């Protein structure tokens, strides 16, 4: 049993929901669960290391990945970033923020039946490229966009 499954069951145990689901047969022990937290990827301090840890050494830069992020973020503490992949067979979408202390912000699994699009909000320490990495049909593709981070406001 992988760690995240164990954690999920532990969580379920304390709250009753997952154990109830298992008992009802809604969740079968053999069901595929999300991959374990990829420590190697989240520890990566550069885009190259992050891509290597994600197994995506030289992704092809493509136009079929749309990134929604502000040109200038009012506040680096909360930067809304959305990604849509138009690549058939998309199974994973990852957010990489080049200038952050840890490059990888998020890795999303897209099971069959789930649309290859996601939105979340990230922290950015400074102006940086935001790369969206997509795994489609087992291959890696990417697009990126620069987001400027301002230190706005009056001095008072």
């Amino acid at each position, binding site marked *: 049993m992988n760690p995240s499954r164990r954690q999920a069951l532990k969580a379920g145990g304390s709250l009753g929901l997952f154990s109830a689901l298992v008992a009802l047969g809604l969740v079968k022990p053999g069901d595929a669960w999300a991959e374990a937290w990829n420590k190697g990827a989240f520890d990566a301090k550069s885009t190259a290391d992050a891509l290597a840890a994600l197994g995506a050494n030289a992704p092809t830069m493509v136009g079929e990945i749309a990134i929604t992020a502000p040109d200038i973020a009012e506040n680096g503490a909360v930067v809304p970033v959305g990604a849509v992949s138009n690549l058939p067979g998309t199974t994973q979408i990852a957010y990489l923020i080049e200038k952050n202390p840890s490059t990888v912000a998020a890795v999303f699994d897209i099971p069959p039946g789930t649309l290859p699009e996601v939105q979340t909000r990230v922290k950015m320490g400074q102006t940086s490229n935001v790369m969206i990495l997509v795994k489609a049909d087992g291959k890696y593709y990417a697009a990126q966009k620069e987001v400027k981070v*301002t230190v*706005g406001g*009056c*001095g*008072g």
Partner: protein
Amino acid sequence: MDRINVSTLLLAVLGMPAFVVPTTATAGDYRDQALAMVKRDFQAKGSAGLDRLEEDGLQSVCNRTGNHPPKEIAARLEQDQLASIEMPADGNLMGDWKAGEKLAQSGRGFTWTDKPGLPVGGNCYNCHRISPSETSFGTVGPSLYQFGKLRGKGPEVQQYVYQKIFNAKAFNVCSEMPRFGHIGALKEAQIKDLVALLLADDSPVNSK
């Protein structure tokens, strides 16, 4: 400021038949209540002491008249403020525009979260457009971009700019601009740097 002089003026303001209190007949009562409430409700914090709630004469005149004192009173007060401006002994009013730009950027100083005492920032960009490269500027005051280009940089303009920064109330008694030199917030050399920022040929303010 000469307090006796101002009190006399205040009496004159209030005694003048032409002087009309701007709101209702009870506005004075509300003002008194407001002042009493403020004195009760504030506490000293950091460098911001309760003495800051004591109006000086000019503030009092502006507060009592909705910032529009009768012309004669305004003119007298402006004269007083102008007379109190200390001009540099060396006669030179142009400092270093680069230091001026740095000073103009800072809005620090005098709040209860700021380090007490001097130096404090010039606060200029909070209210004015100045150098074209700074796009984050306020609009409470007029744009000062191209100021030297438009107004020249002769001795009279230099003197005016120095005096305006030292005490804006010398030219418009209830101006919204602080009296930076008058209150001792900015020192002579700093004001000179700001004069240079607005007037120097090589200042970005006058570029193009």
